């Protein structure tokens, strides 16, 4: 259907072009001004400038309005709403500049098309005008910079002490999630201890790692600041949660972070959208390999008490994986056993890509 529309537009354009051209020739023959000079194709192009301005403007306005809802997915974080206002304010400002300059460009092109006997106005410079159109944009920019800077400092500033902490780690091609457990302290991890079972590389000789638990989904409470700590264990990834207006790279060797406050639970959003299957999504937004496009995690926003219950019900990694725990206990003795080896070998042959899409 769209193919047809586009083809139609293009064909129409060519037809209009051809017709105008013919018309121009015919009229110029009748009026006796038919010359193979600048004249005719020049005014055809001038008219097309006008046609483009009106037709293009109409198409843009129409398609923008038609897609407006689609391009505004729901927002569910405190700073997200502020960003959204700033985004559409800035869009309005640049929209005004866009309309003025584009209109002038095409109107001038049409209006000042070549006319026999007319002479262009020799107008080389005018300092006053130059100053005006340097200063006005500069002032507008200053205002935008100030607003942007204030919001940026607030968003990227330190997370409140009360923030709940969740850590995600990117790997080809999924997200690992862990929580600090009852002691609220994330334990030490070491990438050299990673294997097929211990995907995080938990160093279980560290006491605060013992109660850390992992999860397949990211659970966060509504209305409470959430600090997401971000790591990568292989290549660059990026944590991108469009509904929360959150984005931060996951960098191997350099932990990063981002904090935000969710405003709407998953259930509330499902009810609001009338879509029982709705989920907040976390997408990888820095190219990381063949299945980059499928590197996804689900984020669930709970009511605070639901979140508490869920949190309390989780079993720690060390409890779930007694064999890893045992290996660490053994490692504490002088002879280091290499229990991790077979597991590593297993992962060394990753599943074929074809299976993932």
């Amino acid at each position, binding site marked *: 259907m769209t193919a047809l529309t586009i083809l139609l537009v293009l064909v129409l354009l060519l037809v209009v072009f051809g017709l105008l051209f013919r018309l121009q020739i015919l009229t110029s023959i009748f009026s006796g001004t038919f010359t193979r000079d600048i004249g005719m194709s020049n005014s055809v192009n001038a008219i097309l400038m006008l046609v483009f301005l009106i037709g293009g403007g109409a198409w843009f306005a129409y398609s923008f309005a038609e897609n407006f809802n689609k391009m505004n997915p729901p927002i569910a974080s405190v700073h997200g709403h502020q960003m959204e206002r700033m985004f559409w304010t800035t869009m309005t400002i640049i929209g005004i500049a866009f309309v003025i300059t584009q209109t002038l460009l095409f109107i001038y092109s049409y209006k000042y098309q070549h006319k026999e006997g007319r002479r262009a106005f020799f107008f080389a410079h005018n300092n006053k005008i130059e100053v005006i159109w340097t200063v006005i944009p500069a002032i507008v920019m200053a205002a935008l910079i100030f607003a942007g800077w204030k919001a940026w400092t607030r968003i990227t500033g330190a997370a409140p002490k009360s923030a709940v902490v969740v850590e995600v780690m990117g790997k080809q091609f999924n997200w690992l999630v862990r929580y600090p457990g009852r002691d609220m302290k994330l334990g030490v991890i070491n990438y050299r201890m990673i294997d097929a079972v211990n995907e995080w590389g938990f160093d279980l000789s560290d006491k605060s790692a013992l109660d850390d638990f992992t999860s397949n989904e990211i659970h966060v409470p509504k209305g409470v600041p959430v600090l997401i700590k971000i790591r990568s264990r292989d290549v660059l990834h990026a944590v991108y949660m469009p509904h929360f207006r959150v984005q931060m790279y996951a960098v191997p060797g350099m932990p990063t972070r981002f904090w935000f406050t969710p405003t709407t639970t998953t259930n509330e959003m499902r009810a609001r959208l009338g879509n029982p299957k709705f989920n907040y999504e976390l997408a990888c937004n820095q190219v*990381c390999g063949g299945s980059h496009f499928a590197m996804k995690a689900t984020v669930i926003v709970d009511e605070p008490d639901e979140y508490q219950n869920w949190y309390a019900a989780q079993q720690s990694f060390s409890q779930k994986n007694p064999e890893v725990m045992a290996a660490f206990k053994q490692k504490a003795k002088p002879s280091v056993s290499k229990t991790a080896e077979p597991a590593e070998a297993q992962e060394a042959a990753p599943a074929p890509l074809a299976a993932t899409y």
Partner: protein
Amino acid sequence: MSDMAAKPNLSPGVQAQGGIGTAAVPATEHGDHLHHDDHEHHDQHWLWKYVFSQDHKQIAKQFLITGMLWAVLGGTLSSLFRLQLGWPEGSMEWLTPVLGKWIQAGKLNPEFYLALVTMHGTIMVFFVLTAGLSGTFSNFLIPLQVGARDMASGFMNMLSYWFFFLSSVIMFASLFIETGPAAAGWTIYPPLSALPQAIPGSGAGMTLWLVSMVFFIVSQLLGGVNYVTTVINLRTRGMSMSKLPLTIWAFFLTAILGILAFPVLFSAALLLVFDRSFGTSFFLSDIYIAGQALSNQGGSPVLFQHLFWFLGHPEVYIVIMPAMGMVSEVLATNARKPIFGYRAMIGSLIGISLLSFVVWAHHMFVTGMNPFLGSVFMFLTLIIAVPSGVKVFNWLATLWRGNIRFTAAMLFAIGFVSLFISGGLTGIILGNATLDIQMHNTYFVVAHFHLVMGAAAFFGLFAGVYHWFPKMFGRMMDEKLGYIHFWLTFVGVYLVFMPMHYVGIAGFPRRYYAWTGFDAFSQFADLNRFISIAAIIAFLGQFIFLFNFFYSIFRGRRATQNPWNSTTLEWTTPINPGHGNWPGEIPAVYRWPYDYSKPGSEADFIPQNVPYSQTQSSNLPYEQDMAE
């Protein structure tokens, strides 16, 4: 003189316009020039004349045609991945004869998809819009417009092309190797680009990419040093810096940017080679991949991004500034008006050049860089809107009350201004660190830069080719085909990139093989198909241009000496200038290049080489002083 009068096509314009050059030359030599353009190299072997030429005009054509071949390839790659994006469920079985093993069971291999976008970006940014655009027109126009016989070093200039050629051959070869070409994105961020375990394209494909880029950088530096030297040292008598056409100012500043920025890319590439091949850890740390913990420690992937974008950002100005210069020239010539605010135009070019070196980290707001740096770079980035705005307003003022001739070149110049506005304005969103949190790496970015430095630079390139084709080949391109080419491309570009903003605002990430896995991004199936169709049609439209170009080289209408009634020096050369450009003495320059429609002058243009003493009726008071 009598001898010359008998030969009418010998630069009569130069005489009529008061050029002093040709008169001083012995008539016999002129006679020769009539029949052989390159009298000095009469018995030159074709190999030295056409292949290993040291003539800047020939080298420019070599850059142009190589660039065009690359553009066809780059466009073809984009059509392939647009097919995938438009019809993610569709079968690509029919492409198996071409793509071979990269199609499995009718599906495009997702890793090869990444290779396609990587190579599309690399080819378009470096090989087409840097070498093909700046390489062509800096080479072609600098000596002709400043009044020089050739570049400061013809030999270095030739090397510049052949290093580019070598670089091209290597990059082209990388498309055909077993593990596929580089696939880590054109920005080749490590660790992905450093580890073949992470993606097959980071094996031999990446090695070839890096080797190719090293040769490319050498080519750029050889060219750039030459351009700067030529502009500084080889200007003809009277051609002060304040009389240079804006094209030359743009090429000059572009060359300086290149000289300062490309070595940093070289260092980044070199360190990456070390990390890849010699076990160093500049960019690698704490990595566990393919079942193995790597020994690299202490490196920083973010360091690479700093190095890359220290080139990468000036690079987009390296791409766009030559286009700005040529567009200024074409607009003034065809509006028959002086460019408005000549000095402000130079000032804004200088401002953009300076700022372009201190904004690179706006590509890195959310890469984990210190947020304070984000504030600084947001501030510096948004300032660029001011000189860019000045340029747009000055172009508009140039059209105001002009007497516009819509040549194909003029149409593309107007199209350039339109695209530059459309794409430039969204930069105000992306340069704002706060808004970039949401927009970073989405299709909003893709739409932004394709309009402002992709399509716009292409439009500058087309404007330049249509405008200077008569000087390059002594023939005219067909204007009607030029019009059709323009309108098809102009409409096509907007149909492709405007909807991309919508997809981007919704947050659809770039470099996604398919969006079908995410609910948040899956509502745009129709729009994606629309974009794909428009893109493929617009791409096919470029073959009109290719046909027109190659047909006109051999069959085009013969050009007159100064077909556009332009003021600049290149039009005082013979129709087919030989090596050395002017058969006689190089004309001297007396005035700025924009004396169009000057009150009091009968013709609506006064070439730069006409002294004030010959234009008493149109001289401004201070010019009258110079005439006396």
